[in-house]
């Protein structure tokens, strides 16, 4: 029997979208404490929508159309507003694609930290300053006082993003949901932030769901990798397996678009992901897939378990 004791996040057949339009379709996964899931896929495949759905607590504008999301056994799709406030920032925190989305642009950084901390913890000024100093240092932010005394727009993009990351980590949450957390950062800082996220996991057993288009980030950070297409998790498995022995035609094509140092210009996939309102039955990838057959157009998107922890949605494997 499986051991559910360490399980912290369980997503069951979630369907979510905007209004009545489903974007995220029938997605399931579960994470134990300290596990990191990386999610990759092209723009508009529904990655952000998935994360918005999981982070119900944030009042973000997604509608859950079906399925369940359990955080420490509590169903987030049925949670009260009061519980949302308690969880957000304290147990679950978010890092967004742009620092603008995480930081209040009209308030100084220092005040934003103090407010976040004070709303969940009873800490003195000195303790707060000390905690901030620790976190800043660990992600390479040296000028602590200048930063705390600045407005977000007075910082460079990379600095602002690191500040946003620090703000998400300051309360040492159990679950971090991150949407493109390192896109604004240069490679050295990106590495530093990843090392720090890994250290956070090491020290506090933090669980994370990280959306990124950077395959390098996934390979360094994630235990599991999920590949999204047309709102579905078309391939899911241990990172090592998914990146080294991809099975789904989409995963293979996506990996081919990754630029390599000193290499030729990378090749993007021709065409584009389907618009959700145009999505018909069958495999959403069939218009772009090199292996597409007629049957793919009426494929029921059944999940095939390839190995115990590796699954795909593709007719070729069904």
């Amino acid at each position: 029997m499986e051991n559910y004791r360490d399980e912290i996040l369980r997503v069951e057949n979630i369907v979510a979208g905007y209004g009545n339009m489903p974007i995220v379709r029938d997605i399931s996964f579960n994470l134990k404490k300290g596990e990191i899931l990386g999610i990759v896929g092209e723009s508009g495949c529904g990655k952000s929508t998935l994360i918005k759905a999981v982070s119900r607590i944030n009042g973000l504008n997604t509608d859950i159309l079906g399925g369940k999301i359990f955080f420490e056994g509590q169903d987030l799709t049925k949670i009260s507003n009061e519980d949302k406030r308690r969880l957000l920032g304290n147990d679950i925190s978010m890092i967004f694609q742009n620092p603008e989305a995480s930081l209040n642009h009209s308030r100084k950084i220092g005040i934003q930290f103090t407010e976040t901390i004070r709303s969940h913890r009873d800490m003195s000024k000195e303790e707060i300053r000390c905690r901030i100093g620790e976190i800043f240092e660990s992600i390479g932010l040296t000028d602590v006082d200048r930063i705390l005394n600045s407005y977000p727009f007075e910082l460079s993009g990379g600095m602002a993003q690191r500040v946003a990351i620090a703000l998400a980590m300051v309360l040492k949450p159990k679950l971090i949901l991150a949407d493109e957390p390192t896109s604004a950062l240069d490679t050295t800082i990106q590495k530093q932030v990843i090392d720090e996220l890994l250290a956070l996991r090491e020290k506090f057993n933090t669980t994370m769901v990280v959306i990124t288009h950077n395959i390098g980030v996934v390979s360094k950070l994630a235990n599991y990798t999920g590949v999204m297409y047309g709102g579905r998790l078309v391939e899911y498995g241990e990172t090592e397996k998914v990146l080294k022995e991809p099975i789904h035609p989409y995963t293979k094509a996506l990996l081919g678009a990754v630029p390599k140092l000193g290499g030729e210009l990378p090749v993007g996939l021709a065409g584009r992901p389907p618009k959700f309102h145009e999505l018909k039955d069958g495999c959403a990838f069939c218009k772009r897939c090199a292996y597409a057959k007629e049957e793919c157009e009426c494929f029921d998107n059944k999940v095939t378990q390839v190995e115990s922890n590796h699954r795909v949605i593709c007719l070729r494997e069904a």
Partner: protein
Amino acid sequence: MGNILEIKNLSMEFKKTGNIFKAVDGVDFELRKGEVLGIIGESGSGKSTIAKLITGLLKATEGQLFYRGQELLKLKGGERKVLNQHIQMVFQNAVGSFNPRMKIGKSIEEIIQLLGECSKDCLNKKVEDLLVDVGLKGEYADKYPHEISGGECQRAAIARAMAVNPQILICDEATSALDVSAQARIVDLLVHLKEEHGLSMLFITHDLPLVSSLTDRLIIMSKGKIVESGNTKEIIENPKSEYTKKLLEAVL
């Protein structure tokens, strides 16, 4: 190849509660006509500040900027405005660069109108052409920025930049927020636009693998200064400065 842009001893200081912080510190370089020049460097090293100085979003504390031999910083408001249209910029945060309450088409129209009066039909036609040119459908004119995905929005931002027929396109982390496939396709679009319109490009990014395949020459910055510059291939194969070596090692 002649130089379309020359930058001499450019500096930018920010004052902060009595302290002076030098974001750009005596930078010299040139952009040659028709080339793609990459600027790479750690965050806060002054890359975006340079871009903002070139486009006139910030005013340099020191130095000179020559666009086709004309010194930009000496120009009066009106003249500068005209030349500013020749230098367009696309940012990483494409969604944030659009007015959230304005449809994409309307945002592009406003830029077209900078070039002079234009009838409603002519405007619509131009917007559609621009959108199609960057690989979007004409119907995207009727969408709001938050209704489209990151990659689509970046295409719209490029369409908007192209609306005034620029000579120089500055891309500040323009592909950084995009998935690898969209990135490859935006890069392909940029290369296509460059060739079609004879653009010169300044490509600012932290993605070394990407610049290594895209750019002709490379500038590497650290703490407001240029630490290394030269032919991209040579730098990648044989980096001189310690900082460049460190950057190359951090590639995941």
